[in-house]
């Protein structure tokens, strides 16, 4: 199948998916047996009909649900995600404010996760049943099963408070002003502005939360890498490569790893999407103003426009990551090109 057709087919499939997500989020948000009025209006104003009516009218809650939904879809087509009840700002503006922090954190975390996970996975598979293998397997079990918030709190209290070798909560020391906004990624923006002290400060702040998130992902990647590599290393073509006298490093990296990559890429893709959307705990513990924390606040305060906006964003991230993974498959596995 030509790449363009493959690309187009994947792209078209995302449209009904996104519409379905908006409908699903709308139904779930409306099915919760509580009212945005209670979540957003002070108790003493509950019996003031004018205030309640003004609130409902302002947020369109006085209209029947189907009308609310259709209005939302209409606005969505014009690129308008509505205004957040909690922040009083357009949801799109909120997403622009909060998403870069999450992208920066998740990007760093996935790099750490890949480096640790793929590295230990290869070592574990190549030297199977060695001490390195047992250590890796132990690490995988701990990495995957250890509660991430406990690791975060231990890291914060020991590495930041007690030893002072990493910076604490926030994206920068609180007294430092943000670098001039270009991408919203502080390290990138600081580098663009040539503010290297801010770059270093941002790096020192991201390292701990990214390592905590990355260590969890690394466990999963290591497990998949190990099993996938073990399978490939047992293949005839590996034996053939070795019998041709190729150096072991070349056999492992060039011939084994490249053929073991499909499941690893899948896991990395899913992990990236998970990190981008599910880092609520880490963002809360590290006072990281990202989209996870925004989504949590939206859900607990019945902020419908924000809930819908974040749902669409999360769905889009999953769709995009899956799409990228599919494209990678296309290049990694020639059989997909033929199918």
């Amino acid at each position, binding site marked *: 199948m030509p790449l363009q057709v493959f690309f187009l087919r994947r792209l078209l499939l995302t449209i009904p998916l996104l519409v379905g997500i908006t409908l699903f989020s709308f139904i779930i948000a409306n099915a919760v*047996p*509580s*009212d945005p009025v*209670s*979540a*957003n*209006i*002070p*108790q*003493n*104003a*509950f*019996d*003031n009909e*004018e*205030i309640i*009516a*003004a609130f409902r*009218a302002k947020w369109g809650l006085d209209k029947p649900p189907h009308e609310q939904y259709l209005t939302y879809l209409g606005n969505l087509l014009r690129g308008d995600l509505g205004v*957040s009840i*909690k*922040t*009083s700002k357009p949801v799109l503006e909120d997403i622009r*404010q*909060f998403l870069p922090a999450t992208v920066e954190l998740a990007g760093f975390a996935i790099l750490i996760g890949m480096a640790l996970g793929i590295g230990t996975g290869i070592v574990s598979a190549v030297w199977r049943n060695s001490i390195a293998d047992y250590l890796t397997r132990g690490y995988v079990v701990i990495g995957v099963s250890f509660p991430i918030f406990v690791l975060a*709190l231990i890291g*914060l*209290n020991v590495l*930041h*408070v007690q030893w*002072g*070798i*990493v*910076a*604490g*909560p*926030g994206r*920068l*020391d*609180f*007294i*430092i002003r943000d670098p001039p906004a270009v991408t919203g990624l502080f390290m990138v923006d600081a580098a663009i502005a040539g503010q290297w*002290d*801010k770059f*270093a*400060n941002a*790096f*020192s702040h991201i*390292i701990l939360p990214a390592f905590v998130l990355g260590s969890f992902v690394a466990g999963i990647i290591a497990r998949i890498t190990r099993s996938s590599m073990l399978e490939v290393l047992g293949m005839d073509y590996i034996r053939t490569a070795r019998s041709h006298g190729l150096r072991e490093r070349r056999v492992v990296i060039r011939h084994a790893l490249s053929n073991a990559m499909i499941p690893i890429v899948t896991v990395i893709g899913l992990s990236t999407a998970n990190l981008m959307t599910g880092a609520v705990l880490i963002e*809360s*513990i*590290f*006072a990281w*103003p990202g989209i996870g*924390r*925004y989504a949590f*606040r939206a859900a*607990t*305060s*019945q902020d419908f426009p924000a809930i819908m906006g974040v749902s669409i964003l999360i769905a889009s991230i999953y769709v995009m990551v899956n799409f990228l993974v599919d494209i990678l498959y296309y290049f990694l596995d020639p059989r997909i090109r033929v199918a």
Partner: protein
Amino acid sequence: MRKSILFVLAVALVLLAGFGAAAQDEKVLVIGHTEQTDFYDPANGFTGTTSMVRRATYDTLVTFPDEDASEILPSLATSWSVSDDGLSYNFTLDDTPRFNNGDSVTAEDVAFSLLRLKYVNGNPSFLADNIDSAVANEDGTVTVNLSSVRPTFVTELANTAFSITNADVVRANGGTDGMDAAETDGAADYLNQNSAGTGPYQLESWAPQDETVLVRNPHYVGDAPYFDRILIVNIPEAATQKAALESGQIDIATDLTPDQIVELEGNMDINIWSGPGQWNHFLIMNADPEIGGPVSDPKVWLAVRLAIDYEGFLELWPGSTTPGTVMNIFLAGAFQADRALSRDLDRSRALLAEAGYPDGFDIDLKYPDWNAFGVDMNINAQKIQADLAEAGIRVNLAPGEFGVALEEYRLGNAGFGYWLWGPDINDPVDVLAFVPGGKVATERLRFTEERAPAEILELRDAVKQESDPMRRAELFEQIQLWLQESGNFAPFLYPPTQTALRSGISGYNWHPQWVMDVALISRDEM
């Protein structure tokens, strides 16, 4: 070789961690806080964070002392008078304060601010319900006419929702005080990012759920505050606030749990400010037999109050006190711990038997699964379960998600529950929410006027009209005695407010109206 690489890495990390921490000329105060801001616009916002910021950026006509809400003091109004019929108030204004753009405060600004609050139908607009008109007089005074007598009117004016804004600036940014302001006012966006007041600071920026930045008001006429910039940083996790405070990243942590406060007590770098809190924790009992079942019986109400181990709650939450009634303890005339009920299990069991429950009964306790400002409501609910079991009441704990539980409570459908209350009005009249006809007693718990004895209704009506302080105090005394004996609430815990500060920070004081006044805070010079 490997050791040296590790050493270099460790040194690099330490250096990086220290970057940016270099001394700077600007004096900055960093407050770690769980942000609850809805709006910074005075006419629309009504949360603790909002009050704190408005206290720093605006002034009101009258105010409270720095430490508490014990009396009314002049602020933008130097004096005021009330007409004989109690319906008309006249305020004389101080002509020295300047808005943050240099403009003087006029009677027109005052009238505009009060009417905008009334008509915009924002979260705090209920406070201005009773205002019929606000008129800027030619002599520079302001007359406010009320639609009915309200002895607490001047007290309520100290609420930061009544902040006086610069009418010209607000109008220029879409604001209006017209009767159609709910539909036509568009100044909230501007006032969420800028202030237009006379306070010692002005709002520089607000990144919702992230950070609020205040800088000095260049035209402030009072004593200049110590700090150049105030950063209010949203740190929702108490454990993170504690870590940031211990490492010196923040100067003040407002939301630590009692356990964390105890952990910090030996730390020489940190001081703990402790004082009366704001939240009264109590059980609610629905007066409608169909909803409340056994807890709709007045005898059971008292039996429940007498079954609670009040001393045990004080041990559970160090620094707490036992509330005398549902009236918050810092309100004038409120019963303190020395007048609180004590546990009397024999009398409690006898009352249950009189009510027809000699073997007790089973009941669900509904409450939000929530950490209420450092107090885990689940822990208290478990203790209530254990305490009432000793009297024969078998409680089944039924926690719910906050919004869901609040909705059930708000609609009056909760039979037996656990909630808390902080007053919106710093006047004893706030307690009327808990007597029949009041917001909580009737709307939430169906204790209607028809179900209530005439005695309490007469007391309630009398105190609403009474402006003589001595007579008011007597009436509130009788109302509290009635609540102790016959009310459908069981208040059991009043936790303290505890704030952790870096040593060297002084001038901090928790305030029931505006949380803290950042303009009074300073740092001891080395």
